[in-house]
C-alpha cells in the first residue's frame, strides 16, 4: 500500500508513543531484575551501573536467609489455593441456583447481592476483624480465607454464562435421569470453562498479591504471607537493595508467569467484566 508522507509520519509517531509507553511500564521491572543480581558495591554507584560486572546469585540466597522465606511461601500458596477453591465451589453452586433453579424471592435476592457489590471492601475490614476475633480465628488460615471464600461479582458473571446455555440440554439430561449436581459439574461447568478459568486466575492473582487483610488478620511471623513479609523486610533491609529486589522479584515472578501462560483467559475475563459494567 502506498502511504502519503503524512500517513508515514503519523505511523512513526504512533510507534514512538507505544514504545515510550512500553519503556515506562517495563523500566521498574528491568531495574528490579538488574539490581537483584548486582554485586553490592555497584548497587549505590552514581551514575548507575546498568549491566552488572558479574551476576551475583548470592543475593537470592541472602534473601532466602534474611527471612523465613519458605514459611511465607507456604502461607501464600496455602491461602491462595484455599481462597480460590472455596470461591469456585461457592460461586458455581450459587450461580447455578440463580441460573437454573426456581425459588421464591430469586430476583429480590439477586438484586440484594448485586447491591452489596457497591460497598467498598475497606468498610468491611473492621467488623470482620471483630467477628473473627470473637471466633478466636485471628492469626489462623481460616481468618485469612473466610471473608474471601465467595464473590458476588463471580456469581454474577457465572450466572450470565450459565443462563446462556440452552434449556434443551437441561431437559435432555433430566429425561436421562441426570441429577442437578451431576448436570452442573459434567455439562455446565465444562461448557463454561473460559469463564470459570478466568475467574479462578483473577482470584489467584488477587489473593497472591493481597496485603491489607493478611497484615491485619495475622500477628505472628509464622503466619505472614510473602507480600506482608516483604513489606516488613523492606524496612529492615536498609540499603541492601539487591537483596530487597531479589525478594520482590521472587514474589512477582509466579503471577507474571501465570499471566504470560494464560493471557488469553485473563484478558478475556477482564474485558468481560468491564463490559458488564
Amino acid at each position, binding site marked *: 500500500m502506498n502511504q502519503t508522507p503524512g500517513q508515514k509520519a503519523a505511523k512513526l509517531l504512533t510507534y514512538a508513543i*507505544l514504545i515510550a509507553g512500553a519503556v515506562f511500564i517495563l523500566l521498574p521491572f528491568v531495574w528490579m531484575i538488574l539490581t537483584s543480581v548486582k554485586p553490592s558495591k555497584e548497587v549505590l554507584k552514581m551514575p548507575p551501573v546498568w549491566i552488572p560486572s558479574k551476576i551475583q546469585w548470592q543475593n537470592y540466597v541472602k534473601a532466602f536467609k534474611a527471612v523465613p522465606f519458605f514459611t511465607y511461601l507456604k502461607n501464600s500458596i496455602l491461602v491462595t489455593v484455599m481462597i480460590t477453591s472455596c470461591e469456585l465451589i461457592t460461586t458455581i453452586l450459587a450461580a447455578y441456583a440463580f441460573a437454573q433453579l426456581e425459588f421464591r424471592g430469586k430476583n429480590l435476592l439477586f438484586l440484594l447481592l448485586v447491591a452489596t457489590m457497591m460497598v467498598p471492601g*475497606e*468498610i468491611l475490614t473492621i*467488623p470482620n476483624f471483630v467477628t473473627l476475633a*470473637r471466633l478466636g480465628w485471628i492469626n489462623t488460615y481460616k481468618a485469612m480465607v473466610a471473608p474471601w471464600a465467595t464473590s458476588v461479582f463471580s456469581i454474577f458473571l457465572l450466572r450470565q454464562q450459565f443462563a446462556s446455555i440452552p434449556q434443551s440440554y437441561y431437559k435432555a439430561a433430566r429425561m436421562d435421569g441426570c441429577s442437578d449436581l451431576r448436570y452442573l459439574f459434567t455439562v455446565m461447568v465444562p461448557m463454561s470453562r473460559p469463564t470459570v478459568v478466568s475467574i479462578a486466575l483473577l482470584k489467584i492473582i488477587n489473593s497472591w498479591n493481597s*496485603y*491489607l487483610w493478611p497484615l491485619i488478620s495475622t500477628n505472628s511471623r509464622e503466619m505472614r504471607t510473602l*507480600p506482608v513479609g516483604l513489606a516488613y523486610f523492606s524496612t529492615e533491609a536498609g540499603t541492601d537493595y539487591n537483596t530487597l529486589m531479589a525478594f520482590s522479584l521472587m514474589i512477582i515472578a509466579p503471577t507474571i508467569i501465570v499471566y504470560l501462560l494464560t493471557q488469553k483467559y485473563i484478558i478475556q475475563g477482564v474485558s468481560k467484566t468491564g463490559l458488564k459494567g
Partner: protein
Amino acid sequence: MRTNRLTDSPPVRFALRYKAWLYLLPALLVITVFQIYPICKSFLMGFYTDFDYLKDEVYAWGFDNFRNLMRDADFALAIKNTMRLALVAAPLSIAVSLLFAVLLNSDIRCRKVFQSIYFLPFVTSMVAVSIVWAWMLNKDFGLVNAILKVFGVKKIAWLTDPNMTLPILVVLCIWKGLGYRVIIFLAGLQGIDPRYYQAARLDGARAMNRFFHITLPQLGPTVFFLSITTVIDVFKTFDEVYVMYAKEPGPLKSGLTIVYYIFDKFYHNWSFAAAAAASFVLFLIVLAITLLQFGVVRLVALYDERRTSR
C-alpha cells in the same frame, strides 16, 4: 420465559425450592457473615462510644465518633488529599489509557506484544511494585534522578518533598492501571460499528473530527464505567503509600489518604469505633460520587437528545 415442564408439578416445585437454597447456602453464609452483617455493623459501630469488642457489649451510644471525626484536622486532610488525588489521577489516567487504546486499535504490528506489556503491572504485587518505585525514586542513588541528570535536571527529593507526593501517586496510578483500562477501552472500540467511520471518511472528516464525533460519543458507557471504577480505586489508595513511605503517611502527611487514616486509627490506635465511623464516611463519599456520576451521565444524555431532536 423459561418454563420447564419438569418443574411444573407442585411436589417437584416444592423439592426444587429447597434444593435451590442448598445450592445457595455456602455462598449466602459467607456473604451474610462477611459482607452484609459488617455493612450494618460498621454503621452501628460508628455510634459506639463505650464498648468491649471481644464481648460484643456496648455500654454507651452517641454521635461522639462522628463529631470527633469532623473536628479532626487529620481527617479533613485525608479527605482533601484523597479528593485531590482522585481529581487529578482519574481523568489523567483515563485520558492516557484512551490514547494508547486508540493507537493500539489502529493498524499496527505487535499489538498483542504491547498489550501484554502494558498489562504486566496489573498482575504484580503492589507491595513489590511500591518498593521498586521507592528505590528508583531515591534522591541520591535512584534511577529516576540519574536519568534526569542526563537532561541537566537537579536532584529532586521525590519521597521527602511534600509537593512531590501527588505527582508520584498519579504516575503510579497511570502505571498500574494502564493495561487494564486499555483492555476495557479496546473492547469498547471494537464494539463501534465500522460503518460510522466509512461514512465519515466518505464525508471527508478528519481524524480529529472522527475521534470527537464518533469514537468518543460511542465510548460514552466505557468512559463512564472506567471513571467510576478509577475514582473508587483511587479512594482506596493505601498499599503504595504505606509501603513507599515506610509506614508513614508521606512527608508532612501529604500522602494521608482516607484508607490510611482508617487503618491508622484501627491498627495503631485500636480505636475501632472511630475507624468504623471514618469508613462509613468513606462509604457515603463513594456512594455520592457514584450517584453524581450517574447523574452527570443522565444530564449529558438528555442534552444530546435535545440537541439531536432539534
